[in-house]
């Protein structure tokens, strides 16, 4: 399997993690009206649980921002490759290796974003569970089976998140591999040409 294909597979795998069991949303939620029947203390607990969702959303935003920064680097890598093609030889190989390295990082970041989305859903599931626990404690939820649904839901999203981390770990390894290849290609080019400037300092 070639490198891009491999990356594509990783990404697809990550997507499957997100959409693994049906839709990428929560099946069980607590209605806001119902929560309003809970005590003030209980509501505070529930709102506190929502904080984790906000944190997860912030992390998702940060991941998206990082991806957009990488797209700038991708354009630069393409520019470098176009320029290097005119020279050919080792220099082109350095530029190509650099482009692949950046592509690997982009793939990883895309996978990360999926992970962050899973993180948001997991955080939401936990928040819903916290609300359900509050309602259960105050006798507003209904049967114990109802609470179990929320527990199962939180557990399921947590499991998917854990599974996804392994995919991220693979992506990380791939990035490291391409980075090493880039540096090796550059070292070859430098030793052959004595040119330290191009493909590094003169972007």
């Amino acid at each position: 399997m070639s490198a891009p294909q491999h990356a594509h597979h990783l990404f697809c795998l990550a997507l499957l993690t997100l959409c693994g069991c049906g839709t990428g949303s929560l099946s069980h939620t607590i209605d806001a009206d119902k929560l309003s029947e809970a005590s003030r203390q209980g509501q505070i607990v529930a709102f506190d649980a929502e904080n984790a969702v906000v944190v997860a959303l912030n992390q998702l935003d940060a991941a998206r921002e990082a991806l957009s920064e990488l797209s700038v680097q991708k354009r630069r890598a393409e520019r470098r490759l176009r320029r290097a093609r005119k020279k050919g030889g080792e220099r082109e190989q350095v530029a190509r290796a650099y482009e692949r390295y950046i592509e690997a990082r982009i793939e990883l970041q895309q996978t990360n974003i999926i992970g962050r989305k899973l993180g948001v859903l997991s955080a939401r599931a936990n928040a819903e569970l916290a609300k359900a626990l509050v309602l259960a404690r105050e006798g507003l939820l209904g049967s114990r089976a109802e609470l179990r649904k929320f527990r199962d839901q939180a557990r399921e999203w947590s499991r998917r998140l854990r599974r996804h981390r392994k995919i991220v770990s693979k992506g990380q390894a791939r990035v490291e591999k391409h980075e090493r290849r880039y540096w090796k290609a550059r070292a070859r080019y430098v030793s052959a040409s004595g040119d330290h400037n191009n493909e590094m300092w003169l972007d």
Partner: protein
Amino acid sequence: MRQPIVRTCALALLLALVAPGCATRGRKILVDDNIARLKRDIEKVQFAVGSTKRLMARARGKQYLAGLYYRLAELYIEQARYFYLIALERQKLAAKKKGVPASSAVVSVQTRMLKNLAISTFKRLLALFPDYEDAPKVRFFIGHELRELGDYEKMISTYEELIEKHPGSNYRLEALLVLGDHFFDKANLDAAERYYARVLTGKESHVHAMARYKLAWCKLNRGDCAGALKLFEAAVDAATRLGGTSTDSQGKQINLQREALVDLVYCYTDKRKWENSIQYFRARGQSKPIYLAALRKLANRYYIKQKWPASALIHRELLRLEPSAEDAVEYGERLYDSLVKGKLFTNADSDVLALLTVVRLLPQNLALSSSDRKKIGAAYEKYTRFLATQAHEQANRSRERDELLRAAAAYRAYLRAFGDHEKADLIRGNLAEVNYATGKYLDAAAGYEAISRRQKGKEREDSIYTAVVAYDKALRSPKDLSRLDTVLARSGLRRAGRRYLRLFPRAAKGKEIKFNIARTFFDAGDFEEAIPLLKAFVEEFTQQRDATVAAHLVLDAYRTMDDFRGLIAAGKAFGKTRGLGDATFRSEVAAIVKGAENQLLSSETIKAGTGRGGDLEAIARKYKGTALGGAALVNAFVAADNARDAPKMFSIGEQIIENYPANKEAPKILSAMAKIAMDTFQFERGAKYLEQSGKRQRGADAATVYLAAAEVRAGLGQRDRARRDLAQALAAGAGANAADTAVKVVELDLDARDWNAAQQTLGRLATAGVSNGTLDYFAGYAALRSGDLAQAASKLQSAAASGDKTARAAAQYYLAEASFSAFQQQGLATDLAQLGASLQRKLGLMEQVKAQFAKAASVGDATWTVAALNRLSVVAGEGARSLEEAQLPGSVPPAVQQQIRTALNRSAGQMRSEAKEALKQCVKVVRKLQVMSAAAKACLKSKTTDVDPQKRKLAKDLSSDTPPDVADLRKQLAKNPGRVDLITRLARAYLAVKNAHAARVVASKGLENKPNSAKLLNILGVASAMLGDPQAALENFSKALTSEPNYDFARANKARVLKRYGYKKEAAAERKRLSNPSISRDEPEVL
């Protein structure tokens, strides 16, 4: 179509030509018209005079008659004025016709006559009405008309009269002023001064300013500049206070403030310092025109006096005030002239700006032709360039920062105006130099960068390099830079640096430039960019000093990003790079890498602990075989332990043991794994981990672990392994605390009747100094069974003297058994002579045995009491039998034989009674304590038994098998070790494969979670029964029924045990209580 168009055009042209002719022509205002108008005015006034006279005629004796006189005089004066104006117009007309300038001297007879009429009318008024209220005014007008008529003598006398008669009137001051002016005009300065001075003695009024002004002129004419200056200043102040304009003695309106300020210039230049002139005149010039007028005169004066600094100052100010385009050229020339002649270059910035005002206003100067304007512009380019460069040179000499800053400002001003001039680049270079010298590095850098684009060769290289240096210097003083400046400086440095590298790739300065470029990214926090550049720098300049700095920056960058993996990789790579840094550097890097490894572990462990990821196992995989890999696994193990994730703990723990056998944490990990294995009911696995842990430890730690392993092995009935573990514990120094475990281990050997093994273990225990009553008893028992009676006696006696009740009872029992053997072996002599003695010995031994069994029975241990009582019965029976079966010698006479036999039978009968009594006593105890043993069973049947009480009756089909299909059960238990239902299922599974030891251990541990679980108690009872402990079995069945009276399995088991040990009634009673009497014995938990 063409004809109509031509016709239309022709018509339009015709209209255009005719239209102006049709317009109304503007009427020309002729002088004749003025004269006619004046004549009409005279007629009007004449009519008024007539009317006034008619009124006067009718108003004789009336109060308002004085007013009519006054009005009549005024009308005469007005009429005189009209005549005068007519004469003036005619004179102008005549002069115009002749083509000569009009004379100011006008002769008009009518005017003179009318003025005289007016004077006489005023005088008649004063004569008729001496108390007329406006008398001062009337007299003032008389004086005024006399003055106009040139009759100065009368004028003077009239004003003197006014002054004398009306001291409080304002007309008095006016009169004094007029008289002062009169004498001033006559050059009679003394007289003039006197009159002016008389004005000033009065209360401040509207004429005071004028009086001071006039007086100042008197002083000036006398050459008293100081006095004149004061009076001018006072006049300006007074005029400022009064505001508006003043009227002089001839009735002319003048701006006294302006006149005084302008007139004082002359004296100011002599008497005051020029440096303060701007402030002085700015403070007094109430409006821009006044201020400008004064400055203009002042500039002129200084220029004439060749006072160059003053001249430059004033001309600079004039140019600053935006003069007219025409004036600006003159002022500019004079300013430049003054500067050059005075060599005044210190204010070059202001001067250049001032001169550029001229350039700016040039397009508005329509008086000049285009070529002249160009010439002037070119001249001013030179002027400003000259001034700026002169200022720069002067600043270079003095090295004064202020001067340098002014030179920079002058350059900037020049460049704004002449940025496209051919010399502009030169000036830009100079400006960059000045900016650099004054610490304005950002501006300097931009300047150098800009000029470098038009340069070539070495000059260009120097300029670009200097730009880079300047950007770098700018960045080194971040406090002086705004955020925008910082961004600009960084991007500028990168831009200039890259340009340098592109143009001069082989230059030696490339190293410094590369470092600085990389540094800008680092300082900006853009580590993604900085890291590869710094790495490349290290690669290229490995052996140079800066390479280590760059390497440290790389590591810092990774650390700031919390990218510990990157830091470790980079640090290790640097450590391996040949020629990079010295030993100190390498040790620093090694320490950093070590710290990073710890931090990586910490962060991942924290994440793992909080459930936010943290893939410690991934780290372990990546760094397999290294200390970091080992530490990662250890932390992963700890995290799994905290999460109570048993399968993960085992998996990670096994990896640690396999890959890092020498890890110092391995023993603890193994102990933890053992504990978790025990907690999850994997006892054999736990024992294995304990043994592995023990192997890696020494001393007390090893002893403790081995003892625990031995305990577990013993519990599982694995006597060989248990014995081995105990031996290891003893070898490691286990002391007295090994005794309890040792009891369990030896007990297994005894149950297996393996006397050698038992004695071997007991020998080790004795060597290690481990002893207690039970062990002594076991040693005695083993020795007894292996035929070493002396050893047996010794050990049993020790045990019999111990504090352990059971051991004491048992030891006493077997001491009795030894005596009983001796008793049995003691035969009776066939020789009559010795028969008595042998009989006596046998009976003595019997008494000894009985006493010993009685002692054993009296210790109070139910099992051993019952056994001892049963044995007492046996001893008595045996004694009786011995007596009854005693062979008497044949030599004894029959009668004697009969007597002896009778005596022996009597004694034997007594003994039989004793035997029965002992059995009765035994039954009584058995019933009372419900003892479950072979002896008890025999007693209940009123029989004796030879069964060894120590020998347990183990189930025949006991196994040490592991039940199949319990893997899932174990997994569930690993997650929920407290679930009694799962524990029960596991224990039952062990029973099913006849592994009673394991079943007992599982059930016992399960009861720790739920002590009254009927099912577990029942299983424990079944296991105990299988392991030859019916007493414990009965106890557990009873407890189970107490907890759950309707639990049929326990009841059936209890009934079965009771029946097995002779309690038939009790067993029947229990069976009756069964709700389901047909319980299958196929169930594992049913006996």
